[in-house]
Each structure stands twice: as structure tokens, then as C-alpha cells.
């Protein structure tokens, strides 16, 4: 693409993270700022913006998942059956 695209990230309220909001086509950071201020802030919807030239962004999208590394994920733990057994032993199992 020949036109310089600037990605706009906005922070909606103090304490919130920056979120990707969209993009503007601008020749430099000053124009990008002047234009993003209005496109993403004229109705008071942002307290801060980050403007980043699109080609400064490194896109990362895939991970290897060849071996079953369940222990690293929440779905790798199934405690229901054992918890039930433990409660029954302790006499603390509730009705049903």
C-alpha cells in the first residue's frame, strides 16, 4: 500500500489498557495526531491515544502445539471427580 497508515490505539478511561481503535492515513505524526484526536476523541470517548505507523508493528499469530502440554492450561485440570471423593471421605459432601 502506498499510503502511510497509522494504527490508532485508545484508552477509554484512566486505568484501562490501550485498545486498537482503527487507523488513519496521514503523512506524518503531526497530521496523524491532529486527525486521530478528532476521529477518536471528539465525543470525549478517549482519554489517551497511541499512534503507531503500521509497519512499526510486528504481527505475531501462531504458536507450535505439537505435544500435549495440558499442564499449562486451565482445561488441563479436572478436579471434579477427586473433589467429590475427598468430600465423601471427609463427610462434608452436600446433598446430591
Amino acid at each position, binding site marked *: 500500500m502506498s499510503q*502511510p*497508515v497509522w494504527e490508532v490505539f485508545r484508552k477509554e478511561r484512566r486505568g484501562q489498557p490501550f485498545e486498537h*481503535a*482503527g487507523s*488513519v*492515513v496521514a*503523512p506524518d505524526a503531526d497530521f496523524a495526531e491532529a486527525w486521530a484526536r478528532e476521529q477518536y476523541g*471528539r465525543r470525549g470517548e478517549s482519554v489517551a491515544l497511541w499512534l503507531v505507523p503500521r509497519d512499526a508493528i510486528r504481527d505475531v499469530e501462531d504458536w507450535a502445539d505439537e505435544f500435549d502440554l495440558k499442564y499449562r492450561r486451565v482445561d488441563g485440570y479436572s478436579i471434579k471427580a477427586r473433589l467429590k471423593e475427598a468430600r465423601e471421605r471427609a463427610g462434608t459432601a452436600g446433598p446430591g
Partner: protein
Amino acid sequence: MAAVEIPRDEQAFLEYVKSGGQVETTDPIPEDYRAKLIKFIEMHGNSELMGVLPEREWILRAPTLQRKLALTAKVQDEVGHAQLIYRVVEDLGKPREQCLADLVDGKAKFHNVFHYPTKTWGDVGVIAWLVDAAAIISQKALLKCSYAPYARIMKKICWEESFHILHGRDVILAMVTGTPEQFELVQEALDRWWGPLMQFHGNPIPKDEDPMYLWRIKSQGNEEARQQFLDGYVPQIRELGLTVPDPRLRKRDDGVWEYTEPDWAELKHVVTGHGPKTEERLAFRRRFLEQEQWVRDAVLAA
């Protein structure tokens, strides 16, 4: 967890989007889907941009400072929407310059309502209240678009459109509680805009024959949208003492609205570039596009 595999086979892709799957700019998509997406989204962008022209005359004529500000802000939003939308089209592969060139050359379409004249301040109210209401119904049906970048901008667009309806309703209410002449202005504008409003959501092609629905670009059929509009807005119109200019309009016991069949031939005639104001507005846009080319050359040429 493995990344979601976007199906390469067109039929499997159809199933994928049908069950709510979304795609991003970098995902592989069928050519037919890409082409339809560009055409649909481009028409939306064109409509936002052309919609500015009937309204901007009235910015200059606004009868109070508050109305001037509110109307300017509304129209500013429409331009902002065009910017958001053309960016999406550009990332899909069609440059903005090409979209604008096709628009002014009459090669691309925009919604019927923006081919008609505005005649009075009554039109200002009716457009902001009812045309924007019809638009917001269509736009809400795009919030879950299978093409995620478009779905995301729809969120901002819908949020901003909600201000427009408030403004429109306020303009209307001031007039219907004003002088008898002002009330008449609203009724007369409604009489002229009802036809285009009824055509706005398109002819009642069944959902499962509508590619836009099948590809889950939109999540609502044309007739469904129209019924939703009537359900929401006919009561609002009538409670102000205004008359909807369709003697056959009525809500059946089963909840379905009956109405005089819109002139679908007229709709087709208008959107293919033969509306009362089409030529004039495209010429106006072309004039400024050409006149200010030097600015884009000076600023954007790196």
C-alpha cells in the same frame, strides 16, 4: 490450543461463517466472498459520504446556534463513518482513491435516500429521526459480520448514530409543538420521505437467497429489517399526531405489518444513478475531488 483453521473449501467456509465464525484481514477468504464484501462495504461508505450533501445545506441555514452545532456534529460523524469504512475497504484491497473515482464516475452505488432533494427544515428532522433510524437497524445487523474488521467499526458507527436519532427527534418535537406552519413542515416532509423510507431496506428477497445473509455479512433479511422499522417507528410517528401517508398501513393480529407495496422498479432506477439529485450531487463531489487533487499530492505523496 491450535489456532482456528479457516477452511479453504468454499462450502466449508460457508459453514464456518454460518456458525458464527469470523475472519480477519490476513485470513484466506474465497474470492466470491471478498468481492461481495468489497461491494457491500464500499456502497456503505459511498452512502455515508453522499448522505452529507443533502444535509450540509441545512447546516448553513440552521435557525439556532445549538441546531447548527448539533447538525454539524451529525454530518461530521457521517464523514467520519466514511473514513472508517473506506479504510476497511482499502485493507481488503481496493484503494480509497479508486472508490471515490468510481463513485463520482457513477460506477458505484449508494443508498436510495441520498438521491432525493431536501426542501425544508422539516426534512432535517425527518432525516435525522427516521432515515437514521432505518439505517441504524441495518447497521445493528452488521455488528456480528463475519468479516471482523467491519464488525468492529460498526460498533463505533452505531454508537454515534444513536446521537443522531436523539437530535432528530428533538428537532421534530420542537416543530410539532411549535406553530401550525411548523407542524405542517414536518408532515409535508414525512409525506415525501415515506416512499424512499419504505424502499430503504431493499426488496423482500428471502434471507436464504440473499448472499449477504448467507455469507453472514449481515444477520438480518431485508423484510425483517423493514418490519423492525415499522414496529419501532410507526407508533412514534402517530403519537405526535402525524399521519403516515399509506392508507393500507396496518399491523395484523400476528404482528406483521401490511403496507402498500413499494415501487421496486423505482428503487432500482434510483440506485442505478437516476435519482432526482444524483447527477447534481455526483458533479458537486467530482468538482471538489478534482479541485483539491493538488492538496492530496502535496500532503500524501511521501
